[in-house]
């Protein structure tokens, strides 16, 4: 057969790919080389000026990036641990299994922004119920949203609450798809539950875990609405993340060109770091 035919079949896919993937990226790159902002709204060409500015004169971006790394890694690790634990609980033959599954999924069905508003009310230092309750127990008000350190953890709490169910669902699906034999074999070998987990469940779940963690990391690295609603990046810049910072630059200050520079740089960094993370995870969890 003439193999030139096969390229004909590739065209529609290629076309769509260019349309939905390549074009926006190319546009972003072009925009990042322009000085488009509120007072010069045009696609002029200013070379790599924006990039120079980013790499020499924008510590705030890099701070927000490291903050983001901390937030996303911490939330995902917590989500993974809690999600896995919940999945293990529900996976077992326990009563009201269905009921618990539904309960665990409730956060996922809520609208994140609305829930965050509710959380903000919860954690309101002087008017919220959390400090009220603590006050009844004689605890001084905790500055959930206005202490630079605690605020980070408040963001983490909300994120974990919101997204653990997703992790739970992925991991539960994984658990349910595992073959029975290894567990039987371990039972026959006389393994305790801890041994079963360490040597059977966890290794078998490793590929699924890596997938779930990476998916969540990608999602978590875009963390924005929670920060936006909960703290607006404050106090100071204590909870500002990359995407929130890019949003400020782009849609608040209307520095489109510079925001594109940030976006593109961010994209490149994310691709590189997620690739590395995936590799490292694979190495750690699936021994080759």
């Amino acid at each position, binding site marked *: *057969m*003439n*193999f030139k*035919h096969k390229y004909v079949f590739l065209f529609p896919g290629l076309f769509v790919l260019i349309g939905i993937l390549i074009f926006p990226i190319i546009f972003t790159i072009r925009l990042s080389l322009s000085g488009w902002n509120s007072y010069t709204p045009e696609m002029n060409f200013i070379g790599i000026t924006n990039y120079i500015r980013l790499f020499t004169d924008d510590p705030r971006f890099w701070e927000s990036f490291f903050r983001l790394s901390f937030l996303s890694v911490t939330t995902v690790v917590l989500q993974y641990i809690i999600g896995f634990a919940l999945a293990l609980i529900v996976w077992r033959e326990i009563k009201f299994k269905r009921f618990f599954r539904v309960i665990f999924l409730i956060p996922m069905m809520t609208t994140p922004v609305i829930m965050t508003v509710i959380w903000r009310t919860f954690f309101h230092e002087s008017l919220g119920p959390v400090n009220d309750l603590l006050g009844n127990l004689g605890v001084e008000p905790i500055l959930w949203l206005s202490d630079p350190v605690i605020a980070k953890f408040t963001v983490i709490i909300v994120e974990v609450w919101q997204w653990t169910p997703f992790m739970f669902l992925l991991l539960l699906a994984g658990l349910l798809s595992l073959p029975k034999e290894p567990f039987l074999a371990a039972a026959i070998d006389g393994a305790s539950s801890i041994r079963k987990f360490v040597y059977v469940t966890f290794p078998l779940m490793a590929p699924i875990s890596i997938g779930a963690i990476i998916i969540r990391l990608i999602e978590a690295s875009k963390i924005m609405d929670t920060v936006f609603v909960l703290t607006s990046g404050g106090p100071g810049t204590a909870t500002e993340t990359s995407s929130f910072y890019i949003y400020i630059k782009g849609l608040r200050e209307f520095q489109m060109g510079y925001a594109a520079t940030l976006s593109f740089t961010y994209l490149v960094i994310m691709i590189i770091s997620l690739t590395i993370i995936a590799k490292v995870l694979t190495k750690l969890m699936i021994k080759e």
Partner: protein
Amino acid sequence: MNLIGENITYKPDDQFHLNDVSFNFKKGNLYTILGRTLSGKTTFLKTIAGLLNPDSGNLSFEDNDFIKIPVWERNVAMVYQQFINYPHLNVYENIIFPLKQRKISEDQIKKDVEESLKTVGLVGFENRKIQELSGGQQQRVALARSLAKKAKILLLDEPLVNLDYKLREQLREEFKRIFTQGLSEDTILIYSTTDPQEVMELNGEVIVLDEGKVLQKGPAKEIFENPRTLKVAEISNDPPMNILKGTKSSEKLSFENILINSPSHFKNLSDQSYNFGIRASEIKLDNQGEEFEIELAEISGSETLLHLKKGDSKVIALIEEVMNFKIHEKVKIKFNENKLYAFNKNEELVSSPYGVYNG
């Protein structure tokens, strides 16, 4: 008007899948490709079907350059190892599937399907779901679909390998009947297998393939009786032909402390060392024979395969009966020297009980 391949080479990633393969297939004939796993059989069939493009060489059919013709225009049908059917369709729909795309009248389609169902022995199964069929029946549906298509080239890639042995036995017999009765004079049938028994039973023209290279071509009987090389001798026998290193000197053959008379067909051989070959079926239990130790007695079908050992030599003997042996038991065996083969140092056949083939 034949299917002709010339010097076909397919070599992805610098590894030969096909190495300088040439052939000339005539219509109305059955060709079997015999080779072990990964010998290039599937690549061979795929190349003819048009699923692969060779790196070099020519392929022509009915005087057309086949390589230029895309797969869907080649009028080729293929049956695979896996029973490939459309699981959402019933038997009838599965069979008419390739016909639908052609402009054939309803009546003709009906006739063709009926005919092919009759051929494969599935009349009355028209409305069955694919999942309700056994593996053998599924493979028959696949074959029926290929037959109904009335392709000029019909390719079967180890169609029986995934069936359990009873079904394989049944279907092998049926395939043979179909191939001898149900095929038109216009069709070229190419069948690939690893099983020498299948090759013998189908009794067509054989191509022995190994590491992408054609080792020998010829009628099944010829391959069996005069394997031109030691490799062919191994591939074309199940169990593989026993090979024993030994020497001939003064009308005696010696190997591993065993001394036997040189058979008459060896009389022209010079005195030197050879690889002697003997089929498992030519080794018999005999109280007068040499003592060997049993490594394992395998029972296959109605046969007992004795894996025997003496010193460094290992042979397999085939007993046409089911017998009980224990591991490490000692048995005495005798070689039928009249059925010995001799291969020289280059592993080429120099003497055969059937006279050296010189074709």
